[in-house]
């Protein structure tokens, strides 16, 4: 029977970063879980070129390469954004934080858990550069908020834990 994937428990939709695919998978040892994520979007749209032909009143199309990305918004956590106060030496993404990893253009492994980190739970994974950081603060917002985009290098894949 069909059933929606409910994310309200707080442990299903999880974005994890790491320096290896194993580390970055949901529940992976040493993986850096991005906290306080408000929303996350997996963009996996193929590039499309449309063209017209003389013998049809509808346009034709062919696909080009996929342009994949992961985007979202988050409330900023100090150690997540600027790096761990005490570097662990295992996950250099966590040690450096999102900001430094973005500015140094370091490629990271990532996963987006759809159902959590239990055995058999699905997740989307790949490698990406961190971009789109634009921290904003205001008295109305009360906290720092930033969008984030993982610009995927290559193909997205899906696996189960």
């Amino acid at each position: 029977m069909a059933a929606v994937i409910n994310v309200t428990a707080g442990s299903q939709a999880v974005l994890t970063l790491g320096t290896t695919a194993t580390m970055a998978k949901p529940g992976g040892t040493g993986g850096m879980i991005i906290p306080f994520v408000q929303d996350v979007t997996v963009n996996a749209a193929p590039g499309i070129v449309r063209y017209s032909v003389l013998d049809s009143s509808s346009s034709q199309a062919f696909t080009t390469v996929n342009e994949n990305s992961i985007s979202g918004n988050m409330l900023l956590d100090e150690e997540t954004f600027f790096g761990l106060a005490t570097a662990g030496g295992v996950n250099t993404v966590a040690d450096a934080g999102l900001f430094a990893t973005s500015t140094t253009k370091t490629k990271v492994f990532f996963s987006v858990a759809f159902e959590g980190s239990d055995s058999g739970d699905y997740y989307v994974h790949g490698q990406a550069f961190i971009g789109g950081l634009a921290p904003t603060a205001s008295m109305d917002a009360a906290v720092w908020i930033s969008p984030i985009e993982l610009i995927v290098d290559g193909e997205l894949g899906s696996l189960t834990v």
Partner: protein
Amino acid sequence: MSIRSNIMSKLAETVANGGVTSTDYALERNELPWNASGEPLYVKNMRVVYVGDEEEAKVQLYRTLDQGDVFQTDTTVQAFLTEDAKNINALNPTVIENMLNAKSVINTTTGFNVQVAESGYEQVIENDYITYTFEYTFTTI
């Protein structure tokens, strides 16, 4: 300390130090502004400031996918002061000003991350007395 307690601590100071205490004005430190024989205590006891209990509401400011939600707390506190309308005390404007400024005691030093701190008052003249009803509103994160 609660927001009400902090405001009361500030109001308990002398007029010169931003409070209301002087030979002519006082702060009721123990009792809430209850009614005695149908009449509020602050009407019976003129020039005594009464501070009501605080009202609170917790509102979800941000929802996050990991349930690390951020809440804001909206707090309202009322204070009351009654004067003889026929004979307003010379210190009245200063006391009123000090009561309005007492909102500033709610800050990070007293343990509150304040997003909004506002105060205001309404006045009602009935018979020969005037009652000032102050309202302090705070939004803390």
